[in-house]
């Protein structure tokens, strides 16, 4: 409680607002290390969550860490982190796509979510309300059942700060590229996009990249997202993004020449995306390892897709995701269509990156 009041004071919030769910980050041992483990185990002695709480991906797939070459000490400490969260009453989802877990937040619900892509999706696509919480503040909110009422919890905090006109029709990887370049230019602003359409899946990749290269917690897309109609646009600066910007971004984020791993995920794939990857791998089986990140629920519900991917030498990993997972002990260059992955792999996993569309990647490494 004291922690929430501190966060409230920092942000000049004068009250807390009750939340319907929490999503906590800081579950990968690779990311939080011994200090995080120590804190969570201390906290788990008496703290219990009060609202439904999901947890971000771990640092490895605990069902197949041996096959992945992960050291035993790492796996042991990773398991202790998971146990601490479970002791506190959190659901062991270990997913970065809590919006795909049921029940999905409804329009207007207040949440305390960490994990930038989930925050961006919940605000923008679902019309739920959450700030970009940090791991400890989301956990404190889960325990108290409320979070400081400021920023994106309030109507005025959901108004756009910049208009982004897109002069090209994005498809496939373009949504990640658009997110990367818009995030760089919008910084911590709230962009209002115009000029294209996209499915919910497209907007997931757009938001994930936007929230990586920028610290955007929400965007509007004219004619598509639920709060775009309420947006006030008068006096806002207008940015333009063209096909050339997207191509330049793709080149700029690709610093590798020869990949030794193809990775799908970040965010974790939905059931439909998993099926698509399975089909594509069947058409052009790759000659280098393929890791596919998804949630435990999706992996369990889609055994046929999993079997198809494994038949072509791929691995379907659950409970973990691309940049928080241990892969630096085995690989040096990762090819991925994920804009978020391309943004974080160099710093968090010491990897070189090849950022390209799924089909291009599979053809290149067939």
């Amino acid at each position, binding site marked *: 409680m004291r922690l929430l009041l501190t966060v409230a004071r920092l942000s000049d919030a004068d009250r807390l607002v009750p939340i319907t769910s929490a999503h906590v980050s*800081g579950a990968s041992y690779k990311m939080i290390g011994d200090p995080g483990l120590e804190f969570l185990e201390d906290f788990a002695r008496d703290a219990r969550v009060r609202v439904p709480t999901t947890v971000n991906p771990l640092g490895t797939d605990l069902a197949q860490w041996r096959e992945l070459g992960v050291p035993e000490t790492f796996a042991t400490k990773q398991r202790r982190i998971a146990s601490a969260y479970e002791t506190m009453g959190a659901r062991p989802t270990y997913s970065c796509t809590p919006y795909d877990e049921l029940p999905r937040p409804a329009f207007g619900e207040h949440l305390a979510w960490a994990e930038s892509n989930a925050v961006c999706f919940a605000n923008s696509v679902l019309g739920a309300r959450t700030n970009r919480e940090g791991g400890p503040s989301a956990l404190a909110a889960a325990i108290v059942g409320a979070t400081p009422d400021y920023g994106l919890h309030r109507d005025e905090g959901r108004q756009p700060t910049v208009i982004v006109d897109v002069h090209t029709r994005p498809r496939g990887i373009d949504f990640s590229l658009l997110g990367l370049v818009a995030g760089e230019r919008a910084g911590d602003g709230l962009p209002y996009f115009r000029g294209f359409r996209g499915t919910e899946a497209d907007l997931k990749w757009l938001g994930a990249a936007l929230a990586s290269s920028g610290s955007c917690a929400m965007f509007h897309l004219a004619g598509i997202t639920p709060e775009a109609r309420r947006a006030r646009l008068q006096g806002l600066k207008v940015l333009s993004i063209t096909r050339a910007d997207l191509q330049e971004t793709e080149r700029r984020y690709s610093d590798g020449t020869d990949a030794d791993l193809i990775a799908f995920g970040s965010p974790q794939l939905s059931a439909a995306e998993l099926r698509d990857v399975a089909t594509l791998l069947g058409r052009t089986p790759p000659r280098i390892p393929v890791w596919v990140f998804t949630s435990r629920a999706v992996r369990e519900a889609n055994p046929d897709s999993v079997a198809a991917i494994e038949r072509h030498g791929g691995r379907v990993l659950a409970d973990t995701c691309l940049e928080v997972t241990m892969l630096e002990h085995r690989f040096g260059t990762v090819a991925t269509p994920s804009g978020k992955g391309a943004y974080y792999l160099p710093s968090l996993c010491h990897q070189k990156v090849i950022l390209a569309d799924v089909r291009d990647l599979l053809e290149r490494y067939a």
Partner: protein
Amino acid sequence: MRIRARPIAPGRATGTALVHPQPFSFVGGVDPRTGAVLDRGAPAPGLSLAGRVFAFPHGKGSTVGSYVLYGLGRRGVGPAAIVNSRAEAIVAVGAVLAGVPMVDRVDVGGIRSEDQITVDGDRGVVELPEVRARAVVSAVLRNRGRILIVRRSEAVGSFQGRWSAVSGYIEGREDPRDRAVREVREETGLRRLVLRATGQPVLARTDATVYVVHPFLFDVPSRAVRLDWENIDHAWVRPEDLGRYDTVPRLEDVIGSVLPSTASTPTPSPRRPRKTIRKTVSPG
């Protein structure tokens, strides 16, 4: 001297200050076992935070920093208290978890390593018993994008020959804003001032004295300046050209505290190193 601050984390502690003039990350910036400062930008790397009042502008980097600070406190090698210019969630949350008293909205440029310092995180007060405070106003005058600087004469009591904004001592209990308006009239003859901004006090340190500078920004309708005995020259300059002048300490920070920031310019590359703030105190 006594500085009013914003309370962040409760508790009260006294200790020797350790000032880190740049934004600080507890992840990678400190040895989590011993509390030794590892950051290569530190004035004295290797010094331990244990028992010190740790002053730095603000936190940066990974949110894991909260856990590191918690761990330091748990092992008894954490700081006695924390003073920030602008608190952000990583350090604030860590201070609460670790039970370390913390305040912010204190310009850490006014504190030197080795100062004795008391931090009250309940009431929001910082005390430096060995340091004397002099309250001054600094009036930044703006006309069509340029700001006025004046060169101090040999007849004034401090910083003779250096360039500064229009400034003066605050007497007794007078309102700083009234003093600022009066100084502008006396030193420049300019009238019809429009107050545009009031900045958080900037602390300009010289040995045992801290000048507590209250910055104000005024728009003025004219550039016709009539100097009095306090100054011998004046210039209307672009803010970015200030570096060319030999100024009083921290003039750029005073001006920066009231001018609209240029921080909204887009970052062209995600891998460009973070811009660090200018060093503002000398190592103690």
